């Protein structure tokens, strides 16, 4: 056994204390690729999977203990699972009308978010470029943006219902108006922060406006743009649930509101878990795309 490997084992052992014994046991063998891979999975589990699971288990236990007393207003987790077992095992049922499995509700919400968010991305990046690039556009638009972005998403809903006279486009508009601000602002900051060196390079080789936009501006501002996109997707998921409670129809927000009206607290809790998980996944997806696209740029 060579010294560097032993040292590596040492480091691992101190990093993941519970795994120390296992690692020491493996050390004498030459690690095969599969063993190495297995160890990496094991390390990953030890550092990123186990701690939250332990905490989650403790929280559930705590919750179970307080809510199991008679007269408790909220059901304990065990009760939630038995109450909602049907919804958990069959998210795909569809009995017509609003009586659908959770999958369909989530899908409807996600579709609205997809449309509203897509519009916000296009408009946000375009306006961000405008504001970031032109001093006059910034002077004129920035104060307005700063005020409008503080308006809470739901405050837009009555206005958009009045304008569109329909729930669906109103919900999409609310998504749009909620997520567009961080995209605009971050894009503008990104564009404004493009080093003069990059634009000087572009000038020396005489890139035209379009080439400058695609080859310098967008890649240079990409890390900032993606920060905005990530904040935006989180906000739009926050907004859709609230908006759907008010506009009705199929959607996870309305599902929660409906459950509240029929006093199905367990259904609400299950829906909240789904909302959280989906929001988390959306955030991860955008972060993943950002990582793939801006690889190398962020460390410039």
């Amino acid at each position, binding site marked *: 056994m060579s010294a560097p490997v032993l040292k590596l084992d040492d480091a691992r052992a101190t990093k993941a204390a519970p795994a120390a014994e296992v690692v020491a046991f493996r050390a004498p063998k030459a690690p095969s690729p599969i063993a190495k891979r297995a160890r990496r999975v094991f390390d990953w589990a030890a550092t990123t999977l186990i701690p939250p699971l332990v905490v989650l288990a403790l929280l559930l236990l705590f919750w179970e203990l307080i809510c199991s007393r008679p007269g408790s207003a909220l059901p304990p987790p065990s009760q939630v699972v038995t109450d909602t077992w049907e919804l958990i095992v069959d998210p795909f049922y569809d009995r017509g009308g609003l009586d659908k499995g959770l999958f369909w509700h989530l899908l409807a919400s996600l579709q609205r978010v997809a449309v509203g968010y897509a519009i916000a991305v296009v408009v946000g990046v375009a306006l961000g470029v405008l504001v970031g690039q032109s001093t006059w556009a910034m002077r004129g638009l920035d104060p307005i943006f700063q005020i409008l972005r503080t308006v809470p998403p739901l405050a837009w809903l009555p206005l958009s219902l009045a304008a569109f006279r329909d729930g669906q486009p109103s919900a999409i508009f609310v998504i749009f108006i909620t997520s567009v601000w961080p995209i605009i602002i971050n894009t503008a900051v990104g564009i404004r922060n493009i*080093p003069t*060196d*990059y634009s*000087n*390079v572009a*000038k*020396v*080789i*005489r*890139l035209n406006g379009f*080439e400058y936009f695609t*080859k*310098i501006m967008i*890649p*240079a501002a*990409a890390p900032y743009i993606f920060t905005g996109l990530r904040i935006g997707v989180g906000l739009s998921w926050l907004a859709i649930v609230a908006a759907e409670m008010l506009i009705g129809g199929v959607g996870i927000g309305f599902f929660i509101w409906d459950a509240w009206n029929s006093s199905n607290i367990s259904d609400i809790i299950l829906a909240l878990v789904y909302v959280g998980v989906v929001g988390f996944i959306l955030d991860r997806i955008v972060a993943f795309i950002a990582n793939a696209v*801006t690889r*190398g*740029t962020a*460390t*410039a």
Partner: protein
Amino acid sequence: MSAQAFLSIQHVDKAFSRGGVTNEVLKDVSLDVHEGEYISIIGHSGCGKSTLLNIVAGLTGVTKGVVFLEGKVVDEPGPDRAVVFQNHSLLPWLTAYENVALAVDKVFAKTKSKAERHEWTMRQIELVNMAHAKDRRPSEISGGMKQRIGIARALAMQPKVLLLDEPFGALDALTRTHLQDQVMQIQAELKNTVLMITHDVDEAVLLSDRIVMMTNGPSARIGEVLSVPLERPRKRLELVSDRTYIAARAAVLKFLYERHRFVEAA
């Protein structure tokens, strides 16, 4: 001042003003450069060397005066005056190859075919000995390698004048020596006209045909121009004891540290 010179800087003044405060950086700077000449500009930090270079590049406008290149007024940047910037300024999201190719594809869009452009790009990268790292990004290569790619990008444009802003300033002594030799070799081969800013007296004497010494700002001028009549190719080891070399070196040092000592601007 004859209008025939290849590159002619004539009575250039440059002042920056912001909020009513005017900062005179250059005052009455004139210089004629012949084709194929290697000129170094040396002077203390902040005296306006980069400003002068940017004026020749067309990136900065003049307040007064004019710059001619081959009889034509310089009023905008262009690939005939390629710049290697003070801090390499490679685009971090492109690989070394792509950084050079971006310039090649744009400058030779109409005059070379796609295959020719690829070949041309590769040739420039090989010229600076970077073929082995052509697919790496700037963040993955060393400072010296970045600077070499920056030089390759500038050479790739086949500029009439190559403008170098402290190209080796941020490098360690060994890498700098190596790159200086490489640049000398390339220049011997391609006979470029070069305008190079430097802080390094040895570098100036070793590489240049003439050394332009600037006085301290504000209102910096050209204080002295020193010819370096050394044979090429120059060998740094042989020059150490060469009389002309020693004299030239002494003259520059004297100018910088005796007559125009660096005074902290108030």
